[in-house]
Every structure is written in C-alpha cells, then in structure tokens.
C-alpha cells in the first residue's frame, strides 16, 4: 500500500514546483514539437519544398556543404568580417565612451554629436557607405563597426557615470592615484554596464553583417544565401538563416559565461 502511495506523492509535489532541471527540459518541448510539425507538414506535402523545405532536407544540405568545405570557408569569411568590425567599432566606442564619461571636456565635445548620430538608423547608411568606401569588404566592416559603436559607447558612458561617487572618494582617502582609481574603482564598477553594451553590440554586429552581406558579396554566409536564391535553392537559404541564428545564440552564450565569471561578486550571496 505504502509502496504505491509514495511515488504518487512525489509526483504531486513535482507538479506544484518543478525543479530547474525539469523546467529546462520542459522548455524544450514546444520547439521540438514545432520542428516535428514542420517535418510532418513537409512530408505529407502541405509545405511545398520550393517555399519551405523540410528540416531534414535543410540538415542534409548543411551536412553536404559542411563536408565539401563550402560552409566552413564562407562561415570563416563572415566571422572575420564580424570580428574586424567588432574590434574597430569596439575600440572606438570604448575610447570615446571613456573620454566622455571621465572628462568634462570630453563629455562636452564628444557626446553631443554622438547623441545626434544615434538617431540615424545605421543600416540606412548603406547607400552612402557604398558611395564613400565602395561595395567591397570595407563597406561591410564599416557597417558592422557602426552597428557595434553606438550600444557600446552609450553603455560605457552610462557605466562610468553611474559609479557611486562615494566609492571614488573612499578610494582617494585610501591613497589611490588617478590610474589606481581607474583600475580598482572605475573599471570594475563599469564592468556590468560594459557587458550589457557588448551583448547589444554583438547583436548589432550580426544584424549589420546580414544586411552588409546582401550587397555585392563574393563570399560569406550572406553570399551563400543570395546565390542560392538565384537558383531557387530554398534549402540553402533556410540553412543560412539557421547559421545566422546559431552564431547569435553561440556568441550570447559565450558572453554570458564570461560575465558570470567576471561579475562573481554580484552573485556573492548565492555563491557561498
């Protein structure tokens, strides 16, 4: 009797408050269901393969392109563009954001034009960029750098401005000079904001890359998709979408791991 009753009780408790592990699995249910439904609709012919190929077809295409090296080579080209743009835009944003956040004269000179330029949707600059730097590689990299610059600049600026002035004073009474205060107070204090800025910046970088790679490109994931569209290879187009989504997901995951490590003090209470 008791042997039967016990598991029932456990299940009832679990249904009221599922553990985090159980919840994580439960959150997988609906995406998998959608994928299965998509596959089923393709197999019974409701979805035409010209409009939307089955997930299994997309997977097979991905496998084929990965095996012959096409996917890897184009992925590397796209990643390089994103990385170079991120580096240029990131360094500029950090330098200008820090100058505007730390120095009054920097704030007066740098912040007004940046605030005005922020209102321009940077993706709408493509025609102008083509006139300025041509349709080659520099146009794509400039577009990524522009996308990266604004979120990172604003979060660097805000992160520095939001630091508790009383902590800076305390550091001063501890005998810390300007550089030591930058290192021990300003940088760690602005770090949460910098991480937020970086996450937004990376999101903007992928978006800029997608748009940039649709104009006169000879390589990259965007090129793969544009070329496939001309030959009506819908499976490759969908594969490209999946790759873009995967890149965004992966970079976010990586950054979150880094953040957890660097900002351990914020979780101080849970950590012990």
């Amino acid at each position: 009797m008791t042997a039967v009753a016990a598991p029932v009780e456990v299940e009832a408790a679990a249904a009221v408050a599922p553990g985090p592990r159980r919840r994580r699995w439960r959150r997988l249910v609906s995406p998998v269901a959608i994928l299965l439904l998509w596959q089923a609709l393709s197999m019974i012919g409701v979805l035409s393969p010209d409009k939307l190929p089955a997930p299994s077809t997309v997977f097979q295409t991905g496998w084929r392109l990965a095996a012959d090296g096409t996917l890897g080579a184009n992925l590397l080209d796209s990643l390089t563009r994103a990385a170079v743009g991120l580096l240029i835009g990131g360094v500029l944003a950090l330098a200008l954001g820090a100058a505007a956040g730390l120095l009054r004269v920097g704030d007066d000179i740098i912040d007004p034009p940046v605030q005005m330029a922020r209102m321009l949707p940077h993706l709408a600059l493509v025609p102008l960029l083509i006139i300025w730097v041509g349709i080659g590689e520099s146009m794509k990299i400039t577009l990524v750098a522009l996308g990266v610059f604004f979120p990172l600049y604003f979060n660097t600026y805000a992160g520095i401005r939001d630091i508790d002035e009383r902590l800076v004073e305390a550091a001063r009474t501890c005998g810390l000079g300007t550089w030591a205060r930058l290192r021990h107070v300003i940088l760690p204090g602005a770090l949460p904001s910098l991480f937020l800025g970086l996450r937004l910046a990376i999101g903007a970088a992928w978006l800029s890359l997608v748009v940039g790679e649709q104009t006169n490109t000879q390589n990259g994931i965007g090129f793969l998709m544009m070329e496939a569209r001309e030959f009506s290879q819908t499976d490759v187009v969908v594969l490209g979408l999946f790759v873009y989504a995967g890149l965004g997901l992966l970079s976010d995951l990586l950054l979150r791991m880094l953040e957890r490590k660097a900002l351990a003090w914020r979780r101080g209470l849970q950590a012990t």
Partner: protein
Amino acid sequence: MAARIAGDVSTLVRAAGVRRAFGATTVLDGVDLAIGPGEVVALLGGSGSGKSTLLRILAGLDPEATGTVSVPREHAVVFQEHRLMPWKRVTDNVGLGVSGGNVRARIAAALTEVGLADRARSWPAELSGGQAQRVAFARALVREPRVLLLDEPFGALDALTRLKMQDLFGRLRARHGFAALLVTHDVDEALLLADRALVLDGGRIAEELPVRLEHPRAPDDPGFGPLRRQLLDRLGVPQRHP
C-alpha cells in the same frame, strides 16, 4: 583648496580660519582646531552645522575650502557608510592602496583585530552592516594611521551593534594610541569615547569641553550627567527639570 602647512610636534592636526560656502550659504566661517597626538576629539553639532564638511576638508576631499589645514600623511577615514568596493573581497578591500612589505600579514592582523579573520574571502554583499563597518575600520587600521577621521562611523548601525562598535573603538584606541576626530550627533557617544568635545555652531567652534573621566567609561557614570546637560544645552536641546 585650503593651504596645507607642516604641523609642529605638539599638534598633529591643525586647522586655522577654515571657510567654506555653498552658494550664498556660509557653512564654515573661520574654524580653528587643533588635535594633539593620541587625542580623541568629538565634533558635535546640529544637522547642517557643517561638521561633516569640516571633516571632509581635513580629509582633503574638498578643494573649494579656504584657510590653512595640516593633517599628517598617515591618516585614514571611516565614513558613515562602509564604502567597501563591492567587487573586491574583504581582504582586497582592506589592502586597497596599501604598499610595502608583508601586506598580506598586515591585512590579516587588521582583520583579526576587528574580529573578522574568518571573513577575509567574503564579498562585501555577504556581510551584515556591522561587519562591513568593522571591515571599514580594518581598512583604516592597516594604514597604521596617526590620526583617524571618523564621519559618524556608528550612525548607520542598530543600537546594539553601535554599543559593540563603540567598545571596539575604545579597545583599538587603547592599543594603537591613534588620535581621532569623531564627528557625531550623539552626545553620549562623544562623552563615552572622547577626551574633548567641540560644538560647531554658526560656522565656528562655539564650545570646547574637556571630558576628564576615567576609561573605560559607561553612560551611567556619575560624571556623565553634568557634562551631558552642558552639551545638550549648547546644542539647543531643551532640558526637562525634575
């Protein structure tokens, strides 16, 4: 910036003619002050009397003040809030800006003195208010200060913790013999800890009262009554007469 001059041997901290105005409001109107080696001076005053302003000037945190100020380089400040860096563990907060040999050992010794040797690896967010303030005292002690500048250091603590901290301060002072300027609005605290009490009023030191009572003191000592009454009178607190 108040001019900083070299002090002589008998006075450790000296301020002369210190003035500070915020807009049209003059908060300090020519303050003179001297603290001898090992002397604890309480600075009392009503809200907005400028006692914290004076302490900030002595700590070198107010570049707008005028007058002459002399404070030894070996000074440390404890504020009303602990002001620990949330991103540094307790041990790194205590050692902030400390240089020289065996820093680790000195930090450990300072933490032991405030009774927190076992919390060296904690984050400030994991400490109670009283513990965090004890870390702030350890951060001051590790600098081996000749004078401590204390801005209502027990003001944000609950009543019980405050009593324990006042006791701790008394013991630390007996062991290290540092001088201190203790800004407070608590008359009993001033009488408990200080050798001399000053009352700041109208931008000047309006009253100076030596506290000649034996250590350790307790608020129910017979000598407390008259001194307390005198200070409260000067601070404008009406007295109930039996």
